[in-house]
């Protein structure tokens, strides 16, 4: 059900009325949590990403982007590097904390103060929650949170919303079922409140130990959003427009026994999909381990690899806007 960019914008036109956004709203800005962005700003960015799917002029020529990845990453780091490279910029940085001066005991604050002198923007991933906020306090250049522990991953949310619009034709009023590790899944934490802005119907499927944290539930309550929490995925399949599946993250558990208890809680396979609507869209921020069976990959609406690919256009749009380098594209 892929629609063209014009149709997608038309479908979202109701929410942007009376809330004008311009490129200037993005220039020099830090991207720390998704809650820092108004709904209209998110839609502006998604519209911009549409343009970058077909155009990649050297807008970032002469710009240097620092990637400070203190934790492993494949999609986020490489899609950012791809985005920068395709726009003619250069990336510097590291892909694990062990090769930086963190190994010698350097603080995040000091690392950022040094690196801002080498770069025009800083992309940071760090296992500690709030690390991107702290980094932004010490840097004059824009700081982009690429995942801070179990807290937030706002650029993944931009990608997820973009994927929903591409795959479902709209973001509004979708019935979205989140499955798996909702406790430690930072992509879930970032996505739920933004989906609530779009009147999504939200259902959370997890073992008790991995249920959505109180902060997110309180935020939804404060927004007046009703949602369901269930233990069995079968109860949700008949009405789901989207299954957002997440990995149980071994690296977030301090107690291996707790991990073993919940690691195989859910598995999406052919039998699962047989109970779902034929047009259900399946997303996953990846990496997956066993929670989605390989047989699902052939499903026409298994969108998780396309979701990863959309990340390049979305991140091209974001960096171009932050650095005021949109040229003729926007």
């Amino acid at each position: 059900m892929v629609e063209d960019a014009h149709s997608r914008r038309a479908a979202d036109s109701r929410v942007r009325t009376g809330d004008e956004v311009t490129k200037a709203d993005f220039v020099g800005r830090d991207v720390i949590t998704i809650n820092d962005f108004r709904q209209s700003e998110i839609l502006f960015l998604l519209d911009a990403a549409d343009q970058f799917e077909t155009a990649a002029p050297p807008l970032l020529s002469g710009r240097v982007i620092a990637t400070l990845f203190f934790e492993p990453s494949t999609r986020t780091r490489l899609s950012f590097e791809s985005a920068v490279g395709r726009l003619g910029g250069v990336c510097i940085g590291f892909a694990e904390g062990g090769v930086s001066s963190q190994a010698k005991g350097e603080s995040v604050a000091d690392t950022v103060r040094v690196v801002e002198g080498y770069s025009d923007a800083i992309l940071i991933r760090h296992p500690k929650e709030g690390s991107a906020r702290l980094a932004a306090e010490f840097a004059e250049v824009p700081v982009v949170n690429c995942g801070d522990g179990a807290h937030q991953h706002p650029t993944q949310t931009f990608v997820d919303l973009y994927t929903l619009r591409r795959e479902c034709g709209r973001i509004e009023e979708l019935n979205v079922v989140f499955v798996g590790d909702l406790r430690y899944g930072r992509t879930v934490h970032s996505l739920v409140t933004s989906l609530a802005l779009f009147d999504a119907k939200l259902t959370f499927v997890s073992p008790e130990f991995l249920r959505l944290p109180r902060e997110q539930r309180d935020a939804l309550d404060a927004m007046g959003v009703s949602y369901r929490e269930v233990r069995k995925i079968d109860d949700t399949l008949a009405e789901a427009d989207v299954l957002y599946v997440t990995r149980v993250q071994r690296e977030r558990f301090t107690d291996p026994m707790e991990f073993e208890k919940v690691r195989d809680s859910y598995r999406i396979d052919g039998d699962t999909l047989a109970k779902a609507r034929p047009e259900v869209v399946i997303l996953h921020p990846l990496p997956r381990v066993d929670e989605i069976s390989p047989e699902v990959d052939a499903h026409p609406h298994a969108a998780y690899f396309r979701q990863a690919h959309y990340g390049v256009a979305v991140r091209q749009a974001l960096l171009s806007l932050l650095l005021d380098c949109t040229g003729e594209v926007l």
Partner: protein
Amino acid sequence: MTAPTIKVSALGRGTVLDHLLAGSAMRAYRVLGLGSEYTVTVGINLASSRLGHKDIIKIEGHELTEKEAAKIAMLSPDATLSIIRDYKVVRKVPLKLPERVQGILRCPNPACITRSEKTPGSFRVDSAAPVTVTCEYCERTITEEQLDFV
């Protein structure tokens, strides 16, 4: 026969914390972390026309700093603070829970960046009595029982 009373000597110089939430005085005293050089009188569960019951703390020889007062306000937002000099009350103010507190709390979330970096914790105050705050870094909500004072 008159009822027996306990005499508490008047303060020459120091601080009186009055209208503390009944039952909160001992925690408030511990949170202040005062040295042994100060004479401190603690009254617990005293009759109060305003609150029904209240606690009170008198500290001889020490005037509470703003940070110390903010800590007490977190535990007992309706308390009043009096500064005494030469046996006279020179300032009497109701404590006020600030909208934001910095440098007086430690985030209890072991995964919060403020636990490993040398940065003062910063918190948004969400509600009073019982107080809840949100860490401005990790955004965890912290309840009154979880408050970890520096």
